[in-house]
C-alpha cells in the first residue's frame, strides 16, 4: 500500500458511480443515433417459437393473453409485433385478454383503435390484410383479475364473459365457436409473471391447448420448465428473442435496432464487474484487513 495517493486500485474503488451512469447513458444513446448493425445469431428457442407461429391458418382462433404492462412491453414489443404480424398474415382470428390493469392503455399502442381513428404499430399491417375488430379479432379487456378468473374463463367461458371491452355482446361473433380452451388453435402469452402460470395450469394442462410464451428475461428459466414438461411448445426470450424473431421473419425493427446498445451495455457491465473486483483485490481488501487503533 505504498504511495496510496496515486494507486490505480484506490482510484477504481473511489470512482464515482455518477460517471458510470453518464457512460451508460452515452453508450445506450450513441448506437441508437448512429447504428452499427452488430451481427446476431438465432437460438433454437426462437426458431421453435417462430415455427409454431407458422403453423397457424385462416380457420384457427388464437387466444392472446397480455400479462404485461407498459414496462414489460418495452422488453417484449419487438417479439410482440412480429408475432402479431405473423398471425394477421396467416388469417387466424385472435381473442385478446389482459392480465394487467395497464392492458387497456397498452393495447391501442399496438393495434390502434379504428373507432377513434387512433393508429397503432400494426394498423398498417391490419389494413393491408383487411383485418378488423369484431370480424377478425375481439378484445375482451382486463378480465384475468386472479387465478380463479382464469379457471372460470377456461371452464365456463360464455357464462363468465358476455361482452367485449367496449360492452358489445360476444354472442354472434366467431367466439361462438369457442366452448373451452380445447377449441383454440393456440394460446400466446406475453408474460411478465402475473397469470401466465395460471393459464398454463388451467388451459394448456387441462385442455391440451398448444401454448407459446414470450417471456421477460427474469422469467425465462421459470417458463422453460413448462417447455420441459411438455405443456408449452416454445419460449421467446426477452429483447434478444425479439431481435432474433425480427431477423427470422425478415422484419427488421426496434429489436434489431436495440441490439447495438444491448451488446455494448453487456460488455460494459462485464468491464465494470472486472474493474470493481480489481479495486477490491488491489485496494479494498487490504484496507479492510489493516489493523487500526480502534480494533
Amino acid at each position: 500500500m505504498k504511495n496510496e495517493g496515486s494507486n490505480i486500485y484506490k482510484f477504481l474503488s473511489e470512482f464515482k458511480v455518477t460517471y458510470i451512469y453518464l457512460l451508460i447513458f452515452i453508450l445506450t444513446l450513441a448506437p441508437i443515433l448512429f447504428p452499427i448493425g452488430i451481427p446476431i445469431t438465432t437460438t433454437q428457442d426462437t426458431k421453435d417459437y417462430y415455427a409454431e407461429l407458422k403453423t397457424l391458418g385462416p380457420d384457427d382462433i388464437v387466444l392472446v393473453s397480455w400479462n404485461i404492462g407498459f414496462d414489460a412491453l418495452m422488453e417484449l414489443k419487438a417479439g410482440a409485433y412480429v408475432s402479431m404480424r405473423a398471425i394477421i398474415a396467416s388469417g387466424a382470428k385472435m381473442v385478446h385478454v389482459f392480465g394487467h390493469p395497464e392492458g387497456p392503455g397498452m393495447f391501442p399502442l399496438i393495434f390502434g383503435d379504428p373507432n377513434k381513428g387512433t393508429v397503432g404499430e400494426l394498423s398498417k399491417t391490419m389494413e393491408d390484410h383487411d383485418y378488423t375488430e369484431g370480424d377478425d379479432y375481439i378484445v375482451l379487456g382486463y378480465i384475468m383479475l386472479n387465478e380463479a378468473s382464469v379457471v372460470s374463463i377456461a371452464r365456463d367461458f360464455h357464462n363468465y364473459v358476455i361482452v367485449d371491452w367496449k360492452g358489445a355482446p360476444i354472442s354472434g361473433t366467431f367466439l361462438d365457436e369457442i366452448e373451452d380452451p380445447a377449441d383454440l388453435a393456440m394460446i400466446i402469452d406475453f408474460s411478465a409473471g402475473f397469470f401466465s402460470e395460471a393459464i398454463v395450469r388451467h388451459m394448456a394442462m387441462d385442455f391440451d391447448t398448444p401454448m407459446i410464451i414470450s417471456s421477460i428475461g427474469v422469467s425465462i428459466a421459470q417458463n422453460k420448465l413448462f417447455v420441459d414438461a411438455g405443456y408449452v411448445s416454445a419460449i421467446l426470450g426477452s429483447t434478444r428473442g425479439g431481435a432474433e424473431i425480427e431477423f427470422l421473419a425478415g422484419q427488421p425493427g426496434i429489436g434489431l435496432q436495440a441490439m447495438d446498445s444491448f451488446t455494448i451495455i453487456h460488455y460494459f457491465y462485464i468491464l465494470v464487474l472486472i474493474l470493481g473486483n480489481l479495486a477490491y483485490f488491489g485496494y479494498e481488501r487490504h484496507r479492510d484487513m489493516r489493523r487500526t487503533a480502534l480494533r
Partner: protein
Amino acid sequence: MSNLFEKREFTILLVAASFALVFVPYFLDIPPLMELSTKMAMIVSIINAFAILLALYSQTKRSILRVGQRLHGWPYHLWTVCLLYLVAIVGLLFGQTSTTFLFFQYAFLMPAGAVQYSILTFYMASAGMKAFRARSPQATLLIIAGILVMLGQAPFTGAFFPPIEGIRNYLAENFAKAAAKMFSISMVVGAIVLCVRILTGNEDQAIGYTGGV
C-alpha cells in the same frame, strides 16, 4: 346458530369442504361436482375482484394519516390518493377505453413504467462496480458464470465466437433451470404443507384466528 359460526371447528370444516370441492374434480370425473367447482371459482373470482375496495380503503387510511401528521413524503401520499380516486371515477363514468381514462395511463403510468424499468440498468452497473465482489469461492463462481452468460447474451460474441452460445445454454439449461425447479417445487411443497396445517387446525391465523383456541 350464531355460536356455530363462531366455532373454530366449523370454520375448518367450511375450509375443508371448499378445498374438497375444488380439489376432487381434478382427480374424479363427476360432472355435477365439476360444475359446482366452476361456479365456486367464479364466485371466488368476483369476491377477489372486490378485494380492491379493501386495498383502496387501506391506502386511503394510510395516506390520510401521513398527510394529517405531515410525515416525510406526505405530498406524494396526497398526490397518490387524489389520482387514485380521480382515475377510479373517470374509469367508472367513462369506461376503460375512453380517451379521458387512457390519458391517465399515457400521462402517468407509461412514463413511470419506462423509468422504473430502465433505471434498473443504472442500479445494476452501480452494484457491479461497488458491491458485487469475489469475497468467497461461491461469489467468485457466480461472477464467472455471470460474465459467461453476459458474453453469450451479447449477440456479437456468439457471431464471432460460437462456443460461447453453448456455454451460455449449458449454464441456463442446467443451473438456472435447476434453481427455478427447486424454487417451484419448494413453493408447491410449502403450499401443500400450509394446506395440511390449515385443514388439521394447526394454522389458526390463516383462517382468521389470531392464535390459540
